[in-house]
């Protein structure tokens, strides 16, 4: 069995569960500490390095960090990371003079981007400071892409979008609004050095069942994302009283809640399966139900029902799901007609590339999707890069941002005539946080408070308009407590085998029985069973040291529920244990320039 390698970032990176789960590797514990210190602008800027849109994501992120949060394994509820991000954004000072700037002298390379959504803007954010000339083509009149047109204003105010898209555009990007790209071939002919396709997955899925095109369907049956866009532009200002939403993803949640604000009184969301298979985030489901939206499970659409050419309802098959051989099977128990005046289809989104010619070197594969390299985002035409929902279908904003970062690295490498596949690995800094005897540069005491609850605008007020923001943000007191719930997982327990005298002090003091001094075993699995408390969470790694000086046994640590309280280091007489702050160094595009000049 080999000792754990802590000289490279992977082990310590995985210990910081939130950062490891975040597609963009946002340094969550550090920005929470900055909030705790009242350094909101610093916290905002640290966020911005990795996720570019802290104010937007602080309201709308899918929060992959929160299910991963160690605090969830300790007391059942994770730290409210996402809403604390919003606190940093809401309370920041004017930081415009601290943003990256584009140099006066350009590097002579011209990049075109298609779509002004989160992924394109991230590419622009990374490339503009390096002297690139960036032109963004946007078919609508405003920047933001789906963040603007598909996320209702009651979840994301326009001002927040204007500020954060503006930070990037004002670095010097040329945005051609109201300009849709109809031919990639002719765009390439304009002599761009590279083209980035960040046009999203703008086509809502159809539901082609009997009655879809009958009667007044044109006015009464809507495609979710298109309908949300129409509401945003003011083309649609009201909806009939009884509305059915088909589908139960986050778009469905936005549709049902928007309907409630446009005059609907009886809104039902219809799902094919039971609740545990819903695609919508749990908190979005809760918010919808708080607004008296009814969620109907196990109903499959069968046909639209009309009376005298007017939609009056929809017929559904009531399903019962059984599991056999690991597969879910449904049987129809009965059918039912649910009356309604309008239907909104929110069953998914597709990509559509009618504007990409098939003779310009871009290979299209399965599902008529372009072949795109998973790491470099490069298509088979080396000048054309894809990212965001346009690359591999719908994901979420934080993934789009990460795609943008990665594509920016590739484009930069490509324009320097280097291989986009040659990329710098993650780096790390590891610095002791010891101030002195039992004094640390972080708050190591455990705060037992429960998770703070977001305050919502009262129902009557929030239905007064689509633009009334529902979540009011955390109060100062809530913020102060919530940041202290963070366990500071990036303050790593770092062990030096050669200093250990095997006094057991660390093992004895550890409140969560993470540590064991054990004889070496053949495999890690054997070791897992022999620890102070059995290490049953296989998703969490085990740390094993080099053989200890006196008995050649190993220091073993189960990373699962370590509180990072630092007591092992406080009780260690020889400083074999130390608390060290881990900082993941993510190589963005600018880091790759250094490599080029080196």
């Amino acid at each position, binding site marked *: 069995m080999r000792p754990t390698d802590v000289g490279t970032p992977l082990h310590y990176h995985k210990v910081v569960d939130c950062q490891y789960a975040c597609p963009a590797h946002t340094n969550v514990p550090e920005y929470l500490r900055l909030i705790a210190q009242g350094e909101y602008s610093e916290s905002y800027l640290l966020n911005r390095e990795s996720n570019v849109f802290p104010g937007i994501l602080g309201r709308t992120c899918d929060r992959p960090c929160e299910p991963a949060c160690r605090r969830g394994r300790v007391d059942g509820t994770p730290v409210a990371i996402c809403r604390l991000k919003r606190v940093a954004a809401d309370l920041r000072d004017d930081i415009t003079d601290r943003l990256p700037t584009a140099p006066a002298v350009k590097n002579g390379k011209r990049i075109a981007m298609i779509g002004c959504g989160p992924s394109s803007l991230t590419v622009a954010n990374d490339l503009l400071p390096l002297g690139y000339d960036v032109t963004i083509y946007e078919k609508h009149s405003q920047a933001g892409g789906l963040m603007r047109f598909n996320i209702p204003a009651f979840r994301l105010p326009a001002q927040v979008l204007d500020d954060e898209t503006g930070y990037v555009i004002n670095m010097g990007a040329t945005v051609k609004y109201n300009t849709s790209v109809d031919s990639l071939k002719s765009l390439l002919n304009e002599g761009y050095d590279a083209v980035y396709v960040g046009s999203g997955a703008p086509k809502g899925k159809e539901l082609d069942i009997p009655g879809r095109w009958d009667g007044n369907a044109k006015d009464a049956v809507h495609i979710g994302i298109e309908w949300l866009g129409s509401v945003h532009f003011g083309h649609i200002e009201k909806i009939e009283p009884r509305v059915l939403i088909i589908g139960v993803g986050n778009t469905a949640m936005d549709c049902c809640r928007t309907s409630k604000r446009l005059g609907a009184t009886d809104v039902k969301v219809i799902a094919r399966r039971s609740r545990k298979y819903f695609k919508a985030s749990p908190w979005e489901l809760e918010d919808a139900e708080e607004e008296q939206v009814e969620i109907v499970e196990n109903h499959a659409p069968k046909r639209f029902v009309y009376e005298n050419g007017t939609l009056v309802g929809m017929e559904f098959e009531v399903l019962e799901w059984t599991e056999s051989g690991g597969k879910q099977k449904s049987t129809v128990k009965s059918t039912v007609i649910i009356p309604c005046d309008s239907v909104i289809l929110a069953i998914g989104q597709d990509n559509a590339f009618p504007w990409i010619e098939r003779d310009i070197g871009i290979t299209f594969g399965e599902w008529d999707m372009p072949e795109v390299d998973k790491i470099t985002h490069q298509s088979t035409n080396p000048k054309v890069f894809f990212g965001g929902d346009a690359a591999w279908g719908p994901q979420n904003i934080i993934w789009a941002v990460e795609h943008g970062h990665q594509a920016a690295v590739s484009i930069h490498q490509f324009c320097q005539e280097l291989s986009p596949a040659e990329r710098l690995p993650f780096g790390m800094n590891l610095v002791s946080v010891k101030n002195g005897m039992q004094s640390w540069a972080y708050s190591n005491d455990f705060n037992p408070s429960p998770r703070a609850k977001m305050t919502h605008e009262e129902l009557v007020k929030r239905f007064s308009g689509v633009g009334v923001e529902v979540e009011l943000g955390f109060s100062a007191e809530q913020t102060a407590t919530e940041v202290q719930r963070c366990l500071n997982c990036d303050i790593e327990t770092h062990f030096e085998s050669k200093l250990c005298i095997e006094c057991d002090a660390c093992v004895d003091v550890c409140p969560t029985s993470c540590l064991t001094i054990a004889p070496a075993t053949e495999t890690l699995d054997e070791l897992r069973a022999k620890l102070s408390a059995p290490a049953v969470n296989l998703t969490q790694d085990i740390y094993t040291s080099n053989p200890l000086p006196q008995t050649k046994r190993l220091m073993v640590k189960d990373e699962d529920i370590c509180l990072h309280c630092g007591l092992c280091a406080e009780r260690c*007489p020889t400083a074999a244990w130390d608390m060290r702050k881990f900082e993941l160094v993510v190589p963005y595009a600018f880091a790759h320039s250094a490599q080029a000049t080196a």
Partner: protein
Amino acid sequence: MTSIAKPPVRHPGLPKNALGLTKRDYEGAMSTLCAGCGHDSVTAALVQAFWESDCPPHRAAKMSGIGCSSKTTAYFMKHSHGFNSVHGRMPSVTSGANAANRDLMYIGISGDGDSLSIGLGQMSHAIRRNVRMLYMLENNGVYGLTKGQFSAASDIGSTSKKGEANVQPPIDPCLLALTLGATFVARSFSGDKDQLVPIIKAGLAHNGFALIDVISPCVSFNDHEGSTKSYKYTRAHEVELTSSDFVPLRREITTPNADTEMTAVTMHDGSTVRFRKTHEGYDPTNREQAWLHVRECQKRGEVATGILYIEEGGKDMHALAKTVETPLVDLPYSVLCPGSKALDALMEEYR
């Protein structure tokens, strides 16, 4: 000292004992001893043993005197009774407490200074009386609390931190106890919980005075190269005369070892101390042989560990004094103090 109290969070998989308690329920206050002190490991071993033995904390009394060792009673079983006595006087106070309430479990914690210097007479007489108690002698061979003078347990030739060698012969508490008629004598090492925990459990079940001399290194003043009570020296010179398991009553023996001959000693409550292996025909029930073996180890500079001697048939203080079965505290006052007429009748008997 530590900067914070131990967080109340525990591992969700932490097992519970017959009383529904986890190991952490047997903890006490945060230790204020030096980081790495052997005494903290002894505390952890005690916590483990109490938990494994299903001890009800409210039926235990923690007794101590003065010294680093005597602080440890604060660091375990925070819901138990306790008495922190004058230096070296813990054995008498425990004798008194035991006389008044024989139903409690007495845990005396002492050190080499508290027991072998100022309290030597106290300890000796508690052994003679065979007071039913667990007597933990946390032995680090140094006066740590007063910054590193030699103690009565320091070996000849072992050096102080500054390099001065000790010239006076040591008192070996195990040899002393054997000569005084102790009925349970053991030695262990704070750095070896696999050995120490079963010995503590056996000591708790013993019907009489159970002495456990624990080599418990002083990390601040006696863990250097010239020390004979350091972690390193003890690990290198430890000779395990016996290794034993404690098998509580009503639990099946699950690790039979048919290859070796075993001595098993049945305790008065029906539990068993089973000797897994003993050193070259060592018989832990033979007092003279035990004394000789320990003495020979001492001469060779070895540290003899394990349960060195056990005699379960002996009479404890109450049996020797022929007191009533009911603890005195539970006797009605009229019975405990029957009045002048009863006294007169007694006096009459002696005329």
